């Protein structure tokens, strides 16, 4: 058994913020035993990524390299990392909780008879790993009992990602054995959805509506509020899934990331996939009938009430204030 490892994700040749957050979670685990974590980069040309990671306070960097890893596939990544982990027997492996990790890490863990503790938001002594339950309304602490590596993935934004430059770690290469026939899926290049006509990313004021609005016919209520405030209208995913508003107005992990001065959330519960899209907001206001809705955990101002009463009252008050 040896050490704490962190898997870095290659995002089109760059290392995203969430990978640095995973590094810092791994450093936290490693520091409890006076160690530094080892980092892993996976791909066909990982030299520059490895060099970048090597300066960030890790003990060593392993480049898991194979031509068949040039494009991400679950089969390729699972095979490659399975071989590395069988050779290295890590104690802990930390991943960033990205869509890519969700796609292969559960299979990789199962192949080694382990279970990924996914979407971790905090690490307590033990170690106990905290993750959200019931869409953020509760938190659960998990413990690993297995003999093999303990796999965890960390939620975006849960750990601080600024890791200071600290020396140059040794870089080694691991060459897994993979045959073309073992890769069963054929992915295409990523493509964008519909053309973007609204730019929520630069909007200063946003009124966002969620499933609390109940029906498409009720949307004008919120539209009027947005107009009175001079704000752009945005929505949570279910509103766009239902086709009530175009998908370009969806905020969250699979939609837009916004950073307005004011984000006014109406009838939105505050699931993490929504919240990751609004982290850059300077002020969050929530209107929700449920005082325990997770949106209030990140709100600066809150009104607990029925949106069908509060929103019209607010629209009136805004109109009056502007005159």
């Amino acid at each position, binding site marked *: 058994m040896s050490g704490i490892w962190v898997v870095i994700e290659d995002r089109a040749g760059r290392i995203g913020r969430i990978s640095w957050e995973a590094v810092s979670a791994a450093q936290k685990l490693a520091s409890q035993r006076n160690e530094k974590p080892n980092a892993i980069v996976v791909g066909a040309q990982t030299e520059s990524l490895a060099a970048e990671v090597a300066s960030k306070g890790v003990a060593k960097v392993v480049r898991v390299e194979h031509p068949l890893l040039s494009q991400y596939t679950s089969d390729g990544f699972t095979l490659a990392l399975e071989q590395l982990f069988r050779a290295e027997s890590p104690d802990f492996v930390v991943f960033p909780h990205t*869509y890519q990790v969700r796609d292969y890490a559960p299979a990789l863990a199962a192949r080694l008879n382990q279970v990924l503790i996914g979407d971790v938001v905090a690490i307590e002594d033990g170690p106990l790993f905290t993750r959200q339950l019931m869409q953020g309304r509760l938190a659960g602490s998990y413990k690993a009992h297995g003999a093999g590596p303990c796999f965890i993935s960390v939620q975006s934004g849960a750990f601080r990602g600024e890791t200071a430059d600290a020396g140059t770690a040794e870089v080694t290469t691991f060459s897994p054995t993979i045959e073309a026939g073992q890769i069963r*899926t054929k992915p295409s290049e990523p493509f964008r959805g519909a053309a973007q006509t609204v730019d929520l990313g630069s909007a200063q004021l946003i009124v966002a509506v969620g499933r609390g609005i109940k029906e498409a016919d009720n949307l004008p209520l919120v539209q009027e509020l947005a107009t009175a405030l001079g704000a752009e209208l945005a929505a949570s995913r279910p509103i766009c899934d239902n086709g009530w508003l175009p998908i370009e107005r969806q905020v969250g992990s699979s939609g837009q990331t916004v950073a307005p001065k004011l984000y006014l959330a109406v009838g939105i519960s505050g699931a993490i996939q929504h919240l990751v899209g609004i982290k850059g907001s300077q002020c969050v206001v929530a209107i929700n009938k449920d005082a325990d809705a997770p949106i209030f955990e990140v709100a600066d101002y809150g009104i607990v009430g029925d949106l069908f009463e509060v929103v019209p009252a607010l629209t009136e008050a805004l109109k009056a204030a502007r005159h």
Partner: protein
Amino acid sequence: MKIVVAIKQVPERDAQVHIDASGRWIEESDLQYAMNESDAYALEEALQLKEKHSGEVVVVSVGPERVGSTIREALAKGADRGIHIECDDLNKRDVLGVARLLAAALKPESPDLILTGLQSDDLGYGQTGVIVGELLGLPHASLILHVEKTEAGLTVKRELEEGWFQTIELPTPAVLTIQSGGNKLRYATLMGIKRAKTKEVRLVTAVELNVESTPVVSLENITLPQKQKSTQMLPGTAKEAAAALVEKLKFEVRVI
């Protein structure tokens, strides 16, 4: 095409959930339950594939007696038959343990396609489908919005982050985890509800499936989440709260 859909019964979306006396689970006695949201989309995708290509749609659910009602709901929407894996200690099993039960029950069915929801709304692991694929030695694709049958197998549309997508080709049999929103959900018709009563639901117990059940990870305790910000609550009637908010927006946030 023979398609199996794994459906989970979860607390209703607006249900008030409370931590139970043990501090390790939620109070179940007064809860209302419903079909997990992304599973409803998985079922819809399966029913549409069957309508296009004919075949059979089988639903499977692991849980105590109450999950029978969710299986009936799926049958009323058009699934052909159900498998209920009876298991009263779901909260003591980890996600690998649940996936093992599903895999053991599905193996003799030899389906062409296994669909699961992307993620359960209660525990939110987002792993079960991927692990079932691994246990059965089948290829998988996750976060799928659309499925098309081809000569060679399947072409699926996968959601990526921030509004990006990709297509993936894969052979069958395969496992897909379905993301919400790809289709419009159907309602059960009166006729469907009537017919559901006569459809087969096979009961198997977790014990009969005889899978390894010692968990690798355990849920040690449940707590209320920690607040990240101190929120100023604006009390009063709707009118009073609205007026107070306008004041804040004017003088503290300075956006009007």
